[in-house]
């Protein structure tokens, strides 16, 4: 059986940074990515990032993916990292043995340490007609549109005014589609106001304190009914509005994708502020299993920027555990802590801060 030092599962922003920082400390890494290309969600993010310049603020997600991929390819040429794409981890056996599918076969490997950066899955909403063709998750539409060059419809209703809902709405407009409205159950917009202003300027109404009531259509979505909600999120009868759309896009949150860790019996906590069930982890991102670390959305739903910082941290810590890295690399750990903390001081990180406190309580 193949033996590896550090296995990184998932080649998104967290996994790429974890691999890079571990390799740069001197460790040997195997990186598994399910898709054809590295980058995770970055490969469809055509917008520029916010935050700090050290974490690529002002750079588009797709460019960050290319930059990190080329840094990883350099390490691959030096033989420090083995990058497997279209490789999907499916089994977490006992000990440190894991099974993954690659080139049509189930293969196994044994590893000393693992960093899981498997991201998140999109949430579904229960409403009549929610299985009609034309009901999509917003991230799926973004993939179809920006990666595959396919628009799944002409007229859209966006459900959810968090960053994903706002950004995908804007990108739909850029692609020539019509967005007839954004509904948000909360009384205020959840995402950055700069994204909200952009789509408002282009004439898209944002209905706060509104939700989707039903979807109608014979063979596919033909119209959506939206309704106002009170401060307990209860629909207010008589406020229904019918909007003629052929696509309903759901941007109603993400769930950390921890099924592989659940298979292995790793401890999970239910923390709504972090996205629901998250693997318990300490400040070094170590889970209840001493050799398993997590980073990115799997460790709690946040942003690509924090995913990259967490990835970098996990990579440094794990390499250190295996005896790699000089003093300089170990000092970096403190700097990454500091940058994570700085990034999370803003009002938009309030939920993350509350979630982190609950995590400490276990």
């Amino acid at each position, binding site marked *: 059986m193949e033996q590896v030092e550090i296995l990184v599962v998932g080649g998104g922003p967290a996994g790429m940074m974890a691999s890079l920082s571990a390799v740069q400390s001197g460790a040997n890494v195997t990186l598994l990515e399910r898709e054809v290309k590295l980058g995770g969600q970055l490969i469809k993010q055509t917008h520029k990032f916010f935050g700090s310049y050290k974490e690529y603020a002002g750079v588009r997600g797709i460019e960050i993916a290319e930059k990190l991929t080329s840094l990883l390819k350099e390490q691959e040429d030096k033989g420090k990292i083995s990058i497997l794409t279209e490789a999907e981890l499916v*089994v977490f056996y006992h000990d440190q043995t894991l*099974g993954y599918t690659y080139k049509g076969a189930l293969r196994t490997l044994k590893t000393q340490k693992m960093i899981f950066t498997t991201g998140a899955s999109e949430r*579904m909403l*229960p409403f009549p007609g929610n299985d009609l063709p034309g009901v999509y998750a917003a991230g799926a539409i973004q993939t179809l549109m920006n990666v595959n060059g396919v628009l799944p419809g002409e007229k859209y209703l966006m459900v959810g005014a968090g960053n994903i809902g706002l950004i995908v709405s804007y990108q739909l407009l850029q692609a020539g589609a019509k967005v007839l409205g954004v509904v948000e159950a909360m009384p205020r917009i959840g995402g950055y106001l700069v994204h909200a202003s952009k789509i408002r300027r282009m004439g898209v109404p944002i209905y706060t304190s509104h939700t989707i009531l039903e979807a109608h259509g014979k063979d596919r979505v033909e119209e959506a009914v939206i309704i106002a909600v009170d401060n307990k999120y209860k629909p207010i009868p008589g406020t229904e509005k019918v909007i003629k759309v052929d696509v309903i896009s759901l941007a109603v949150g993400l769930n950390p994708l921890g099924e592989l860790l659940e*298979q292995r019996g790793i401890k999970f906590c239910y923390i709504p502020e972090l996205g629901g069930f998250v693997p318990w982890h300490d400040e070094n991102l170590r889970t209840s299993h001493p050799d398993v670390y997590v980073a990115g959305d799997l460790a709690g739903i946040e942003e690509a920027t924090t995913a990259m910082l967490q990835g970098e941290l996990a990579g440094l810590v794990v390499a250190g555990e295996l005896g790699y890295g000089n003093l300089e690399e170990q000092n970096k750990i403190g700097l990454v802590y500091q940058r994570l903390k700085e990034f999370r001081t803003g009002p938009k990180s309030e939920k993350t801060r509350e979630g982190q406190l609950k995590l400490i309580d276990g």
Partner: protein
Amino acid sequence: MNDDKVIICRCEDLTLKELRELLKRGYTTFDEIKRLSRAGMGPCQGKTCKQLILNEIKKYTRLEIDKIPIRPTAVRPPSRPLIFNEILESENERNS
């Protein structure tokens, strides 16, 4: 609301109406609902329905989500359906 038009588990076609009937009959754990309805046993392995079912159990039992019993072995390998040939190929690899 038209409960029979609300899909909770799209892999196994469980509707909200069927889920609420199970709850009324006293099946108020995720495991029981899974065994009786096959919810969560399809290709996506519960990624879509798990949270929706837990929310309904919470509404019905008034238990907080982390107090709703879920067996620790509820998630079993593999995490997605495998093709027999993938397993066969791995046997060949081992024997070669």
